[in-house]
């Protein structure tokens, strides 16, 4: 698997999750779908904003877990 395919796999999160919503209740499905839309758009924007730009290693940082401290 190439690294670009890794990226595609990551973005599949929105597609697959949205498909899974078909068996849920409409109100809850929409709320989650809205969240997924934001996630996907953030991911796409991250790619777009840096396409062709010089590598800046400082842009990649560890992420603190939910409810936890920075790792």
């Amino acid at each position, binding site marked *: 698997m190439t690294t670009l395919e890794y990226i595609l796999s990551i973005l599949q999160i929105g597609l697959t999750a949205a498909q899974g919503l078909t068996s849920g209740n409409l109100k809850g499905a929409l709320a989650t779908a809205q969240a997924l839309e934001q*996630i996907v758009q953030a*991911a796409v924007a991250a790619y777009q904003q840096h*396409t062709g730009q010089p590598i800046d*290693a400082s842009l990649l940082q560890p992420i603190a877990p939910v409810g936890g401290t920075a790792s």
Partner: protein
Amino acid sequence: MLRRHTDSGWFAGLGLGISLILLMAAGWAQGSLTTITDTVYRADGTPAAGTLLITWPSFTTASSGAIAAGSSSITIGAGGAVSFPLSPNAGSSPASYYTVVYNLIHALAANFANLRQVATTPKLVGPKLAGPGFEVLVAGLMVGLLGGGVGCKSAAYRVHPGAVDGFDSQSYDALLVAQATLQQAKSETASGGLPAEAVAPLNTAIQSYDVAEAAWQAYHATAANAAAKNTLQQALAAMTAAIGGLQSVLSQPTSPKGGKP
């Protein structure tokens, strides 16, 4: 981080766009197939080219017709024209939706659905797929993907200046996207937008990202050291698997929200 889309071509330049629309038939009399006919446009307003992948779960129609789960690939015709038949699913058991994935060449469809608009406006506001009896677009999602996958053969990957090699550059992209994905997921979880069940797999994915991020920093710093490359490859694979775990949870039927940390 978040860029809102506009009709002037927010996604212009992307090699491949996929927009995903969940459709629900409403107010449709049961019985024969209905034909969905419309035109798909690119973000710049020109007719789109590509394919639509339509999938649906198994369901029983309101008139007791059994529909097996399936899929169908539709090629967008000249001028962006699409036309295809679907079985009505209004009143189906269980409630069902058609999922339409747009695989568009070079750009994304214009006017894709804004979920918040759709949630309050029971009209088709996204990429139009209209037909007799189909009037409600329940939800829409759009994913802009990269060249190099299916769809756009002319898109060329641009290696970042300063990268030690192509792998370094692409790994950097993967991690930038993963970082944005996970940070946004954290935000959505904190605001209750994602179910509480997402917290554990999200934290697992974050942990995997952190490992991959450190591995990339090492690889980048050591200028393509073979051992570091192997470590990074394994870390990226683990990260992808972890995000897959999160994806599995989000694919489950909805449950009460409450993901605040």
